[in-house]
């Protein structure tokens, strides 16, 4: 929705501005200029310092080996890190694969479900405020806490599930939700979906509020049933929000980290690229160059997924 409105606002705005532009510039007082400089300069410099510089630094570092102690121990090694990651790092390909699984699952399950919940809540049913808060709560609390809560549920020895179903008998049925692949992957995906549903719901709810109720009434007058009205009238008008949802889902699945890290540190079938980066950079290991190379790979993957999608979408928007 935000993307849509800003794009809409820019188009007519720019057209109207052009002839008047020089006049306006002259009207800026010194104070205006200072304010403008501050308002654009401060965020820009923050962006450069905290996003662009570290990003460029890690791209540079990815071609070195460095143990993080003293700048003189940085050694240029060319593509050695990348070569090793692709050839002899057994954690790497599983991590890539799991990131893909995350993307598919988050897009296929919690996103439609969040839309479903939002659509129901938009009907102003009773207690809808309560439901909203309940479903949104997982998004508001920290991922580390979520990981911890689900760990209590999944703990094989005294967790909620195994205690309820008596599946914690070491000599009989023993479901190792934390350690055994693919049980552990399913377990973290359930936890992640639980949170993602709330996120999607709130985004779609905001989108639905901005849909003109007249459209619905018109569809009803034309004899569309509820599904037809949703499919052909409501959903298409949610397109701006779908861009946001798609971007958020891709980003969430690529940067997934906290739940898994707290859940089982991302081992044995729950590896993720973000966790490999942490394992290599944080801690005593301090293979800064190696970890940076994984980070760069993750960056490239993110850009490859996000950029074409956004280009296509905005092109469509502009044409429409």
């Amino acid at each position, binding site marked *: 929705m935000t993307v849509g409105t800003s794009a809409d606002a820019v188009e007519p705005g720019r057209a109207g501005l052009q002839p008047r532009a020089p006049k306006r510039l002259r009207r800026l007082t010194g104070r205006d200029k200072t304010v403008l400089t501050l308002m654009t300069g401060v965020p820009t410099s923050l962006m450069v310092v905290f996003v662009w510089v570290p990003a460029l630094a890690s791209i540079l570092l990815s071609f070195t080996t460095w143990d993080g102690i*003293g700048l*003189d121990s940085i050694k240029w090694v060319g593509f050695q890190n990348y070569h090793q990651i692709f050839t002899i790092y057994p954690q790497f390909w599983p991590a890539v694969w799991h990131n893909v699984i995350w993307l598919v699952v988050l897009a296929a399950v919690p996103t439609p479900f969040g839309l479903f919940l939002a659509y129901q809540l938009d009907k102003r049913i009773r207690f809808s405020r309560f439901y909203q808060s309940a479903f949104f709560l997982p998004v508001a609390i920290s991922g580390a806490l979520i990981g911890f809560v689900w760990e209590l549920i*999944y703990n094989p*020895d005294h967790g909620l599930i195994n205690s309820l179903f008596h599946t914690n008998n070491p000599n009989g049925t023993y479901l*190792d*939700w934390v350690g055994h692949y693919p049980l552990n992957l399913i377990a973290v995906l359930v936890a992640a979906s639980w949170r993602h549903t709330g996120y999607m719901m709130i985004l779609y709810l905001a989108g639905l509020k901005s849909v003109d109720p007249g459209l619905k009434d018109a569809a009803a007058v034309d004899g569309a049933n509820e599904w037809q009205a949703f499919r052909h009238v409501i959903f298409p008008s949610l397109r701006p929000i779908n861009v946001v949802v798609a971007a958020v889902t891709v980003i969430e699945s690529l940067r997934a980290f906290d739940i898994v890290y707290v859940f089982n540190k991302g081992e*044995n079938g729950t590896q993720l690229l973000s966790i490999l980066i942490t*394992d290599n950079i*944080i801690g*005593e290991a301090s293979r800064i160059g190696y970890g940076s190379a994984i980070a760069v790979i993750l960056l490239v993957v993110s850009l490859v997924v996000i950029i074409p999608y956004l280009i296509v979408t905005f092109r469509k928007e502009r044409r429409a």
Partner: protein
Amino acid sequence: MSPESPRVFQGPTVDRRVMLKGLLAAAGVAGLPTLAACSSSKSSGSGSGGGAATGTVSLGSNASDAVPKKAFQAVYDAFHTASPNISVKVNTKDHDTFQEQINNYLQATPDDVFTWFAGYRMQFFAAKGLSNQIDDVWNTIGGNFPQSVHDLSKGQDGHYYFVPIYYYPWGVFYRKSVFAQHNYTIPTTWNDFVSLCEKMKSDGLTPIAFGDSDKWPAMGTFDYLNMRTNGYQFHMDLMHGKAAWTDAKVKKAFSYWTQILPYHQDGYIGRKWQDAALTLIQKKAGMYLCGTFVAQQATNPDDLADLDFFAFPAIDPQWGQDSIEAPVDGFMLSKNPKNRAAAVKLLEFIGSTQGEAAYLNVDPSYDALINGFDTSKYNAIQKKSATLFATAQHVSQFMDRDANPAFTSTVMQPELQSYLQNPNSLDSILSSVEQQKQAIYTS
């Protein structure tokens, strides 16, 4: 207790690291926030030892568990009583978080004194110039310790960097009442050990309790298997990256592990060591290979009195039970301590009989390293530790203390777990370990 005999490993000779014009450059570049203190650190190092020490010493601690935290506090309190002019300000961080952040912590503005571990792990930071040498402390406390502890406390440059407070051997823990009930005898050879596992299984016990969720417990099992199969020297060569993981000797050590894997408690990947210890204390499991800190889990005094342990059984008679895994914990001085004189006083106190006694009075799960320490107050486990320690010829620290930390955390932890889950793919796992080892040790 006279741990004279153990030959504690000296650590690898990492010439490149020592050669690094290192010390000053590293401290200067990395320690930007504390740059101002840089120039004075070396001179104050030797000069201020004798002056009257007053003020506050800050101390970074990884003792976040309740019992050690209380015990360390008792040490600092005893120190404050002995030197009322100095107070100790303790910053305790979560145990594992402290380790994970150690690099950044030591390069930024560390506390004057910090808790750490002996072995390669200590020598690494000493060689990197991230800690301050404390030969002056050892001038005072040197006489308190046997030669093995002197060796353990030195960096590769021969200077002292470390003051130990206690050690804790790893052994196979069991409950005396369980062994008495089933007429089990202590196994000293591999065959006895395996048949004991078999008997326990038929008696409805889980033979070997196991919880590897923190990923280091499995290392303890491998260390012992390798030292018993191939001897201490080969184990150290392997840890220092000199021997190959694809060596037939390593495969042989693993083959013994594969043999006893069926007797390990299921679901270990997701289980914390504390929970594994509980199954032993609750008499559901028969044995548990762990450090003596496992006793902290026996909160009921009757359970504690019933707990005992034996040395890991011999595999190759050539080596017998000649090595012991006994990590040593202690303290180091950060590179630019704000109050070096007071910090030295604190370290001297920690390395004294009163210091170690203050700790062990509260937490009796460890043993003192001091010559002629009064062992009359020791409990049975401490006494057993002292005996095993004194009779061992070699002392290893632990895989994550003896080897390169980058190697243990990013390679061995996941690879040991994948071995545990797929013991049949050992060959491919070991060749992967070897490839990654070469990449890390040569970079």
